[in-house]
């Protein structure tokens, strides 16, 4: 009976769903399943025929009975056989269609995932991860419902048409009475859907409120406990909870109403048929068997009619889901490789040659930008937010496509490189390093899957003298939790550094953390960085004083332009933009700042 309620939770998508191309494409996905689908179609037709013939058979037998000429065993066996056969066809239909649908959903899902994986980072900037997940997983699932639904609708329509055709052939008046009921049922079902949609929206809103309250108070329970404010928090909860009760009860009331109302409607129809039909029997226009058939037929009739009433909106939802999936499949990646030349050895020389870049058209980040980073150099990028530091790093990793100029790696145009090959020679550590659920060991190995346990261990021991491993409950076997959440930010950095050390790339790119890290771990990270940066080209988006002090060259960026370059002492002495940046961002990390504080109680 769920069909009336299905699809009520959909948002209104203002897209056209009757697009021919869409249907053609959906059918295309079903082509490999053609055999199964034909079988299913056959079963649907046969089942509908049997479902209709059963009440007819019973009514015929009743008539024969009245006439005293029935072959009992025969009719009864036939009735049982028809029921059983209908079950068999239903089985064939359901099991084969579930197979076909599952196969199509899988194909669609895999295609969608491949499409997502091919996108460059600009795509991921546009869509939050939850939306992508729902497109790949839930929309494909929703799409499959269209298929099941269409099949159900088809079989029910067939049933209604066959039944009505037969009823009309028996008695036109009574058939009209039956049919006259349909608009009322559809009207009742549609009215109900409208009311239900409103109450459900309210229910959902109040549920969200309850969730928000619980989420907040449970997350902040420490604060409530510290200040002994449990009673106040509890009273607030009781208010929200009671409100949710009242609204949920009203929703429940709405939902309770539909079936009794439909039953009363059916009752009116039954009473009418009993009376008018009875008169016809008396006048001899109708046999008692047919009279019985009409009364039974009413039950067969109103069930499909109610479900047809709820069909369109669901169909719409499914097609909209399909449309979203196809939109995902068809989006063009912006990063385009013109060739896939392997890059045997990367020395690590990077050359920006009059590069122009913008995330969005009309908002340029880099215009006519040129810079040569020498192999083996440690380069620190500093500048305010939005100066273009991160964009430089992202272009080198080729997360984004640039619009003008050239970017050369060891003298080769980056667009002609085999991207996978090139990236294995590249190490990247972001501000909040991402770890995959699993152990520390698995995460260190991520960049070089073929590394042995010994190699992983050696890399880990090289970072910060391996002292950080004692802070992990199970050492390298420690589970890092969902996205690394079981580790502190500092520990995640250390794991990421271990990953890079094992991967041994020619170019190392670090977006230094702004997060505060406890002084001991911070020391280990700095020591780890010294190890990792040895013998590579290092590009650091710097936030730490100790990093810029040790860089070979500091590039000061402002609005995509290099305005100063040199080393720390020279730039500081020059008293320009760098000196200003230093006073804003780095001074408080210095020992002189620490010493200047003086004792608290002094």
């Amino acid at each position: 009976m769920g069909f009336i309620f299905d699809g009520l939770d959909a948002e209104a998508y203002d897209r056209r769903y009757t697009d021919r191309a869409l249907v053609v494409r959906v059918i295309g996905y079903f082509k490999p399943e053609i055999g199964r689908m034909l079988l299913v179609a056959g079963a649907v037709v046969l089942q509908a025929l049997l479902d209709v013939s059963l009440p007819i058979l019973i009514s015929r037998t009743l008539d024969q009975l009245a006439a005293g000429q029935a072959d009992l065993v025969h009719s009864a066996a036939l009735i049982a056989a028809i029921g059983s056969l209908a079950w068999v066809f239903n089985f064939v239909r359901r099991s084969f269609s579930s197979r076909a649908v599952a196969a199509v959903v899988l194909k669609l899902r895999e295609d969608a995932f491949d499409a997502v994986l091919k996108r460059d980072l600009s795509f991921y900037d546009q869509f939050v991860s939850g939306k992508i997940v729902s497109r790949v997983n839930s929309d494909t699932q929703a799409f499959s419902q269209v298929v099941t639904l269409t099949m159900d609708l088809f079989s029910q329509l067939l049933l209604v048409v066959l039944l009505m055709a037969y009823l009309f052939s028996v008695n036109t008046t009574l058939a009209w009475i039956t049919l006259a009921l349909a608009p009322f049922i559809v009207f009742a079902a549609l009215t109900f859907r409208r009311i239900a949609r409103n109450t459900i929206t309210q229910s959902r809103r109040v549920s969200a409120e309850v969730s928000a309250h619980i989420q907040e108070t449970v997350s902040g329970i420490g604060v409530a406990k510290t200040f002994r404010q449990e009673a106040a928090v509890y009273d607030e909860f009781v208010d929200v909870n009671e409100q949710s009760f009242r609204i949920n009860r009203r929703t429940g009331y709405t939902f309770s109403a539909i079936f009794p109302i439909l039953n009363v409607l059916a009752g009116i129809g039954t009473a009418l048929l009993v009376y008018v039909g009875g008169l016809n029997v008396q006048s001899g226009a109708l046999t008692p068997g047919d009279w019985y058939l009409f009364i039974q037929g009413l039950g067969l009739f109103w069930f499909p009619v109610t479900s047809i009433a709820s069909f369109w909106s669901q169909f719409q939802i499914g097609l909209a889901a399909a449309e979203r999936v196809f939109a995902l499949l068809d989006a063009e990646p912006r990063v385009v490789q013109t060739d896939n030349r392997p890059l045997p050895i990367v020395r690590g020389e990077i050359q920006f040659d009059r590069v122009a870049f913008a995330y969005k058209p009309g908002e340029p980040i880099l215009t006519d930008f040129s810079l040569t980073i020498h192999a083996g150099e440690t380069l620190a990028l500093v500048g305010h937010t939005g100066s273009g530091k991160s964009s430089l790093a992202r272009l080198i990793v080729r997360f984004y496509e640039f619009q003008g100029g050239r970017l050369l790696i060891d003298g080769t145009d980056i667009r002609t490189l085999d991207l996978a090959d090139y990236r294995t020679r590249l190490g990247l550590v972001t501000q909040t390093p991402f770890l995959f659920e699993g152990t520390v060991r698995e995460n260190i190995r991520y960049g070089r899957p073929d590394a042995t346990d010994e190699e992983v261990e050696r890399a880990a021991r090289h970072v910060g003298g391996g002292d950080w491993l004692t802070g992990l409950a199970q050492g390298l076997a420690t589970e890092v939790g969902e996205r690394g959440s079981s580790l502190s930010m500092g520990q995640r950095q250390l794991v990421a550094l271990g990953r890079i050390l094992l991967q041994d790339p020619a170019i190392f790119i670090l977006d230094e953390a702004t997060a505060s890290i406890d002084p001991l771990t911070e020391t280990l990270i700095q020591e780890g960085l010294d190890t990792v940066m040895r013998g590579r080209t290092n590009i650091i988006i710097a936030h730490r004083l100790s990093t810029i002090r040790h860089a070979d060259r500091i590039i000061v960026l402002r609005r995509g332009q290099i305005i100063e370059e040199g080393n720390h002492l020279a730039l500081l002495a020059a008293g320009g933009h760098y000196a200003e940046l230093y006073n804003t961002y780095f001074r408080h990390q210095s020992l002189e700042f620490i010493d200047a504080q003086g004792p608290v109680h002094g």
Partner: protein
Amino acid sequence: MISNSEFHISDAYLYNRHSTTRWVASHIWRYKWLLALALGLQIVSLTTYASSALLIGRAAGEMVKPDGGQLLQYALAILIILTMDGIFNLLAFYAYTHIATRFAADARQELYASLLGKSQTFHSRQRVGDLMARATDDVALLSDMVTPGASLLIESTVTFAITLVFIGLIDLKLLIVPGLFIIAYIFAVRGYVHELEPITARLRNQFGHLDAVLAEIISGIEVVKASARELFERDKFRTSARRLRDTAVQQGRVEARYLPVLLFAIAVGVMFLHALWLYQTGVLTLAGVIAVMGLMNVLRWPTFSSIFTFSLIQSGLASADRILSIIRAETDLDENAAGIERVVQGEIMFERVSFGFSDQPLLQDISFCVQPGQTVAIVGQTGSGKSSLIGLVNRTYDATAGRILIDGVDVRAWSLDALRSQIGKIEQDIFLFSRTVAENIAFGRPGATQTEIEQAARDAQAHDFILSFKDGYQTVIGERGVMLSGGQRQRLALARAFLSDPRILILDDSTSAIDSATEAEIQLALRHIQRGRTTLLITHRLAQIRWADHILVIDQGRLVADGTHDELLRRSPHYRRIFARYDVALPTLESVA
């Protein structure tokens, strides 16, 4: 059953928590009269519905009479009876709905009260998301268990019973076929549920897993791409997706095979045969045959519906189990309302304190003493046990061995109220409620005046940035309002502490300041709040450590060194390492005796 709790509701309704079924029953029992009414209404409604089949049979008898009989009266009677059925049915469902939604709300309230009473040990081990799921999804399933779950199951049972009675009234011999059918049906449904349940559970898990796999890949896409591991992730996704497909196919096959439908078809055939045979032997009239077949038809709906009622009830019970397990989870701390209550001076003493959870020791044999008004900084790597150590002072946790004394009195002897209200704590993840700035500052002292709130904000160096918001102190914080930076949150938490003015302050400070100006303000506020109170400090700010009265160095749960900055530079290799990278001359390391 009154268990330990940090929080009690005075007039709470007491439910039976001995077992899941008893718990559910005691919740429902609160509404026993309404339940009785619902049952009564439902029985009347179903009786009228089933009797309509009898009336139709009688009408058939009337219409074959030569004088036309009382056909109209019968038709009207059918109309009235079916309308009554609708009304009674509606009322019954209203009553069930009330019970169901009340049950859900009551259970949630009970769960919530118990959550407030649990210790921090419990909360730090529970994931918020998991508790949320129990308070929302599981609670909703409780309501579904009552209606449509139980109400439909009762409907089916009553329908079966009434139908059998009516069939029996026509002729007792007719009961053979439906009786056998019901027995076979019960077995078939049990088998079906048995077979389907694990598959459905697996399907749910696998779908959740697929979502998790995908979400992880997408969140980590930079690493995936930068490490060129796309193919690996693709395989991971495909394996999950294929596993899900296989289970979906399996589920489809089991559902397609739903045996009760076949049984019903056979029963109808055999029933018909039996009725016809009785007709021919003269036991049954034609009207009787029609009535019997109509009654058999009444069974069609319960045959279909009970399939999901069973699973609704099953999952409702499973949810009840999950909720009850949280409510019943023992908590180790109690309010200790009869404990010592007096003004705290601020002396803290650790005497050979050890602490840990059953599987892992976190602190071992820690002893130190802090004089009133002193500032103590605690230094150590993540995971060394710093947070556990400060959590022992206000009894967020209790030590497993040794004692912690405040003003010479064991913390366990203090009343929890007196202890916690005099010990302020600022957590590492500063938690602010989605309310106004003023309400957040006044959280620890409801009823504080605006002047007091503003003074606290000034002391915390927060006044200026608060005024920079459009609505000033009335600005709402959080998702629905202003997002604050770490430094701003830190200063609001400090303002909160200033206002509640505790004798002892515990500060787990990991806020980072991006720029030097903010850093200077935070330092100022921190120094201000330390004056005149005992302060225990975990901090990433070297200046705070450098100038503390006393520094504790913790490594792997042990106190490896303590003293002032100058002493530690000379004595502790751990501590020296922090300052080594500042390229300054350190005093020579003295060997530790």
